[in-house]
């Protein structure tokens, strides 16, 4: 999509949001800024920025598309049994290569309407609590859990804070370390900060070739540390948030080849991911519960670089 076209779409979005009485000003401004930054920066100097842009492409398959492609007989289960149902997170059960699994996926829209419905992929506490409810259920019925993550982060809003987004994320981190069935997370697009990490305390963290995983958005990092949000490309490069760098740092277990890129064709990427998950599941299922939990603990215990 040409940049002018995107900008005109954003204008359209703005008027529609206004007519519906929803304030999306910030999201729209952010997107506008992204478009402008794209124009002003040389991609070659900051290859990681190219990954950021690829990971956010509208025509890239969303986590729910991964579920549709990889999971058969999927049934969605809703609600956190506490306060509501968050549409930004999809949960349910299905079969993967013939075996029952629990599935958790963040959800992103591909049109204006669906984007608003899924809150631009930003979950509220209810979403994480639903995910944990379903994952505890998976442990009860001894089925593995497959998680697909693509989110800019947890939602920064009043409701989200009031309902304890901090607690919901912290609880997820604490719960996942003790779930006695195999957990495999795939970062399919944007792995945004704590909101993504809350679904990534897994035995294996896989990442699609053009996906990213970051402690903060490059725009946020640039505006805080470089006092200039148009320096996002430089921030992206400095944060080492691209799949290849993350693998080199030992922070993800495998990078899944996308072929020509998921936005061109998803066939190869999906096929490679299916193979990879099948392989990982076979390995993980051979472990007894104790060794599985022990290995997961040791994996996260070992992360960190310091000198003594």
């Amino acid at each position, binding site marked *: 999509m040409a940049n002018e076209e995107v900008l005109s779409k954003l204008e359209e979005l703005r008027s529609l949001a206004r007519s519906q009485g929803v304030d999306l000003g910030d999201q729209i401004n952010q997107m506008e800024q992204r478009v402008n930054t794209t124009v002003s920066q040389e991609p070659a100097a900051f290859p990681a920025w190219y990954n950021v842009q690829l990971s956010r492409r509208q025509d890239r398959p969303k986590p729910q598309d991964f579920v549709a492609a990889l999971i058969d007989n999927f049934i969605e289960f809703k609600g956190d049994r506490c306060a509501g149902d968050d549409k930004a997170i999809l949960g349910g059960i299905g079969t993967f290569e013939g075996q029952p699994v629990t599935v958790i996926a963040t959800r992103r829209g591909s049109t204006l309407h669906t984007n608003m419905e899924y809150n631009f992929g930003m979950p509220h506490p209810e979403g994480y609590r639903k995910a944990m409810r379903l994952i505890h259920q998976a442990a009860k019925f001894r089925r593995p859990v497959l998680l697909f993550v693509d989110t800019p982060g947890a939602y920064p809003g009043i409701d989200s804070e009031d309902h304890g987004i901090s607690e919901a994320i*912290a609880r997820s981190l604490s719960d996942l370390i003790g779930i006695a069935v195999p957990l495999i997370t795939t970062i399919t697009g944007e792995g945004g900060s704590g909101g993504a990490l809350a679904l990534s*305390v897994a035995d294996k963290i896989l990442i699609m070739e053009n996906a990213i995983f970051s402690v903060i958005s490059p725009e946020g990092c640039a505006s805080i540390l470089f006092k200039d949000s148009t320096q996002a490309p430089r921030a992206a490069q400095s944060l080492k948030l691209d799949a290849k760098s*993350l693998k080199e740092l030992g922070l993800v277990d495998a990078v899944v080849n996308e072929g020509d890129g998921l936005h061109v064709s998803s066939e190869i990427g999906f096929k490679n991911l299916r193979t990879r998950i099948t392989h990982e599941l076979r390995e993980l299922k051979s472990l007894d519960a104790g060794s599985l939990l022990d290995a997961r603990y040791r994996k996260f215990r070992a*992360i*960190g*670089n310091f000198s003594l």
Partner: protein
Amino acid sequence: MKVPELIKRLFVTKPRDDKKEITLPDNLFVQCPKCKITIYQKKLHANSDVCLECGHHFVLNVQQWIDLLADRKSWKPLFANIKPIDTLHFPDYEGKLKKLLKDEPEESISTGRCTIEGIPVLVGIMNPNFLMGSLGSVAGEKIVRLFELGLQERQPVFLVVRSGGARMQEGVLSLMQMAKTSAAIRRFSDAGLLYINLLTHPTTGGVSASFAMLGDITLGEPKALIGFAGPRVIEQTIKQQLPEGFQKAEYVQEKGFLDAIVARPKLRETLVSIFTMHNFTAPKDRFPWPMKKS
């Protein structure tokens, strides 16, 4: 003219002899940043650095926290040799670290063991002067070791939390410290041990979304800002004015995420009370009291 200076001029007699000049130390009086009242420094200290007029809790540095909490001379630092590395070669990070480490060699958290009214406790105190107390590989490792030691020795852990969140300059390495600390706390907790934390101003971001919310008993300091996203970010996102007192400890407690708000002068006795009710008590043979029967 500032009030302390005025007092100095009014009450300090002019020296008769230049060589024997009488001086008042500059820090004899302090002004409360909230209610602007001038307070005699010693009186402020006697009240645990809480304003006598408005109850404003002055910011404490690590040493002041130790003085406030620990029995005299009982503090023994732990894991102080763990130092940061600029793994990502992040712009300006290495230089910043070098400069900061000169004054703050223990990085963004000081960990140690001490006794509180004779009760042995493992304590971590976050340091706002080190990159906003941000959570990086060093803080993550120290916190994990503290909980592992607590598990090994079956002792309670108390953390004074004050942090802007995960440290950007360490990328996902720092993000993962949220998972790493949460994992260690989980093991500690599963062993039936007690973790108390005190959230002070400010507790935000990745820290609020990990070990700050995983205490068995979570205390807050009055008026402390506690939240995931900062108020400015939220305001920018929703383009609305935030409710009054939003993300302040009192508000967070009303929403159900703090067990109690404890004013600093009451902190020690509250802790001792909680420790005692969890069967953590002072060893009987400490100090001559109670007298041993011969």
